């Protein structure tokens, strides 16, 4: 290492920035790789469920299929329909892709490894940051629907806006009980709290509400009304093609992975390894085992998301709204009151 470079790194701000930059690069590369292979997993698992084979020609077991697909999408001719509002039409896919990338910053994917905290930014307002950034994803879909200047995308965009806003409410309220228990919004504290028992055993109702809302927030079946093919042709992305379409597609899968990561962190102990005291293996191995535990749980949830999609039929729009406002919202409120009462009684006793 040249002396100029090491001197530069010795400055506290620079070292911090360099560490953050490396973590950001690693997380984005891992996320995009996972997105690509989640798409393949989805195709293979759905084929399995429908007694087909799925894409198995490109590479062994079809493992090179995502690479072929991404080159196809990247190399397609860039077509801009004449009837669209150009500015928002081009910007909308980017707006849809940004939230999942930004929310990942606060999710701890491990404890510490070689002295580095395995989280990009452990914010004091952790989960609040995730909710605030995730709530912006709806702009991408709404603007895409509106800027396309076409009936079906517009209907899809409007549906999506109503759905996302409706399910943000029970989702946000369901985690309140988690924070009553933990006493902090910081995700590293939430994970540390679950060293003994996972929060799913202490707040099962909150987990159920959060899970259902997560399916709705990520536009996955049984709540994929914004892109219901039989009713809306393709929904908000009907007028999109090439890489612009691919960005919407990637955003949907990235959202699913982030939602899975959040569920794992909030309710399934994050990077905590169950039943084993990993500290006994020394710091390096313990850190690596934590990361491995996080990814195993994450993959399990991704498979669960895919499994549900190919098993359940779609809700009708009025059923979706009724479930959100009349079932999940009162349940979430009840859950908060019950948790708060239980905690208050425990404090008094």
């Amino acid at each position, binding site marked *: 290492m040249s002396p100029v470079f090491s001197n530069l790194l010795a400055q506290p701000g620079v070292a911090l920035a360099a560490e953050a930059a490396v973590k950001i690069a690693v997380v984005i590369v891992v996320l995009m790789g996972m997105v690509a292979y989640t798409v393949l997993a989805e195709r293979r698992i759905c084929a399995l469920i429908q007694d087909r084979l799925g894409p198995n020609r490109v590479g062994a077991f079809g493992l090179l299929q995502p690479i072929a697909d991404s080159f196809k999408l990247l190399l397609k001719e860039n077509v801009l329909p004449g009837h669209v509002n150009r500015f*928002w039409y081009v910007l909308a896919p980017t707006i849809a892709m940004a939230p999942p990338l930004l929310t990942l910053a606060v999710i701890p994917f491990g404890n510490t490894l070689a002295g580095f905290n395995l989280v990009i930014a452990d*914010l*004091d*307002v952790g989960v*609040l*940051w995730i*909710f*605030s*950034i995730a*709530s*912006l994803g*709806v*702009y991408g879909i*709404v*603007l895409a629907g*509106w800027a396309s200047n076409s009936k079906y995308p*517009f209907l899809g*965009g*409007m549906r999506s*806006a*109503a759905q*996302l*806003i409706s399910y*943000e409410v029970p989702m946000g309220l369901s985690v309140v009980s988690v924070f009553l228990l933990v006493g*902090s*919004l910081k995700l590293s504290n939430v994970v540390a709290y679950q060293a003994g028992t996972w929060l799913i055993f202490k707040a099962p109702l909150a987990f159920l509400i959060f899970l259902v809302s997560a399916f709705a927030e990520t536009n996955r079946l049984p709540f994929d009304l914004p892109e219901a093919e039989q009713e809306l042709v393709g929904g908000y992305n009907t007028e999109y093609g090439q890489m612009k379409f691919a960005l919407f597609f990637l955003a949907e899968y990235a959202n699913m992975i982030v939602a899975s990561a959040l569920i794992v962190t909030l309710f399934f102990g994050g990077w905590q390894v169950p039943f084993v005291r990993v500290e006994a293996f020394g710091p390096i191995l313990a850190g690596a085992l934590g990361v491995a535990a996080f990814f195993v749980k994450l993959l399990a949830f991704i498979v669960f998301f895919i499994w549900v999609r190919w098993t359940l039929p779609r809700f009708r729009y009025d059923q979706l709204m009724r479930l959100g406002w009349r079932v999940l919202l009162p349940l979430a409120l009840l859950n908060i009151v019950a948790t708060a009462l239980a905690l208050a009684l425990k404090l008094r006793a």
Partner: protein
Amino acid sequence: MEAALFHLFSFLTLAGALLVITRRDPVNAAMLLVLTFFFMAGLFVLAHAWFLAAAQILVYAGAIMVLFLFVIMLLDAKEETRRCFGRVAGVGALAVGGALLAALAGVIRDGRLWRVPAGDAEGTTAAVGRLLFNTYLLPFEVASVLLLAATVGVIVLIRAPRRPDDAPPSA
């Protein structure tokens, strides 16, 4: 560094707000307002008011402006871009704007809001919660009742009693 960022975000906030009121197209104006909220959240972060910054984005940019956009898109936005305002409306707008500016100038000259050292505001979630549920408990609860009243009002309005002659077709 912090001073430079403060000036940058202040400038962007003001520029964004100015663009919001000068755009003709309501969708562009609404999205510029979202952007302005972001820059304001940046200012909150510089004041170490983390909770306020997150709440600002969550509530204003993520929820309220989405509903604004929803309504703008459902109404015909093209009509709005063509509409011109008369002289009376112009004078009225100037008067209201001038009064607001005068009120702001009064507060600034008062000086109480003027000097807050950067990072002195306690902005962690716990600090904000302590303030809301101790010092400001009553105003906080009153504000929630106000919002409830508005919600009930909307429901009453959309469920206005039908005239007896247009009874529902069935039952």
